[in-house]
């Protein structure tokens, strides 16, 4: 069963997807469903012997283009609607034991191009008001498969966190005539203490308002709203900066750093969003090498994040771990 139930207290939808309880959970080595299918071997989700990047419909989707009828009837207070949408899995590489940080920057550039294609194709679907590209990495985040991959959800509405950013951006534009993220980017670059890395098209910062100790935002220097607005140079620069940031994450404690990575782009509902600004956000759950930042009572019940660290200090730590990204240098950072 999958459906969308309305929460009148918060004015937002909740997706139920009971079949997801049955999804594959940390399979043993040799039975990874995201690896290529080898001759005579375990048949995976990808029926060929190798691939570069593949995208497929999630076997256990929260949303689907032709959803079943809801399990319950709605009411005036409790509207219910079918879980229309799409859920895709995007496999970054055939190399099972790799991570996005381990991949050469050229592979990340390919991934950026595939992301842009999926944004355009899914965004054109009539059911897709918002295309959300993200990666959950590491068991600390709750991943069920270690093979390097991300996910793409096409939602039938603009999700609440993005809707709030859109509203803040619109209000800022109406009040000042300027883009909110352009102003944030300008303030961060002028101050400099929270900048982690920068290249010709993007800047990575631990933002002034970071909720997680090592939260990083990657802002485009040019005012644009989506991957599809970028030039080829900008897509390459995005790949470079992502590589720099996630490699610095891994160097920080000498371990494969868990994170959530999300791309915030304009909605695909046909509206005008010139006031919005593309960016990538990372939410790593670690606050030390061995301690997690839990979302406890204040964060979950009140919505107030309590960050035990200073963004300026955490940015300096990460900045000290950034190394030049070399194209043509193979895997890892030079």
């Amino acid at each position, binding site marked *: 069963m999958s459906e969308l139930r309305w929460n009148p207290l918060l004015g937002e939808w909740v997706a139920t997807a009971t079949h997801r309880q049955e999804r594959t959970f940390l399979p043993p080595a040799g039975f990874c469903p995201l690896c290529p299918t080898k001759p005579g071997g375990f048949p995976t989700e990808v*029926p060929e012997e190798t691939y570069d*990047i593949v995208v497929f419909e999630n076997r256990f989707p929260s949303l689907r283009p032709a959803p079943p009828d809801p399990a319950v009837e709605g009411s005036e207070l409790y509207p219910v609607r079918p879980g229309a949408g799409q859920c895709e899995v995007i496999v970054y590489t055939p190399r099972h034991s790799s991570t996005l940080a381990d991949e050469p920057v050229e592979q990340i550039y390919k991934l950026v191009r595939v992301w842009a294609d999926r944004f355009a194709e899914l965004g054109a679907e009539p059911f897709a008001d918002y295309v959300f590209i993200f990666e959950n990495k590491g068991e600390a985040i709750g991943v069920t498969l270690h093979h390097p991959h991300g996910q793409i959800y096409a939602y039938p509405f603009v999700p609440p966190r993005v809707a709030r950013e859109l509203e803040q951006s619109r209000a800022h534009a109406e009040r000042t005539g300027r883009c909110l993220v352009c102003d944030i980017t300008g303030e961060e670059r002028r101050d400099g203490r929270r900048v982690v890395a920068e290249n010709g098209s993007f800047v990575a910062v631990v933002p002034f308002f970071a909720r997680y100790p090592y939260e990083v935002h990657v802002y485009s220097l040019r005012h644009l709203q989506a991957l599809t607005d970028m030039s080829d140079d900008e897509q390459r620069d995005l790949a470079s900066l992502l590589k720099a940031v996630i490699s610095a994450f891994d160097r920080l404690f000498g371990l494969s750093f868990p994170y959530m990575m999300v791309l915030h782009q304009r909605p695909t509902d046909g509206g005008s969003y010139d006031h919005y600004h593309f960016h990538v956000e990372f939410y790593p759950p670690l606050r030390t090498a061995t301690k997690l930042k839990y979302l406890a009572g204040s964060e979950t019940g009140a919505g107030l994040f309590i960050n035990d660290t200073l963004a300026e200090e955490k940015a300096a730590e990460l900045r000290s771990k950034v190394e030049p990204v*070399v194209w043509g240098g193979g895997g890892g950072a030079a």
Partner: protein
Amino acid sequence: MSAGEGGDGGRGAPAAGRMRKRQTTLGDGRYLIYYTFGGEDEAAEVAAPERPEPAAEAAAAEERDV
């Protein structure tokens, strides 16, 4: 920290080539898309499947440039 540590050297790097995608349908009806990259010749080789899709796993295939 100087600008450029985030790496913008990719601007002078060789192109990754044309992106192509080939869509197949899995046995349970879900789609799967192979993305490949390369120059004209390489892309043409990639676009031509080296072996038939297993009938149970791929009911249809579509190739196109992106």
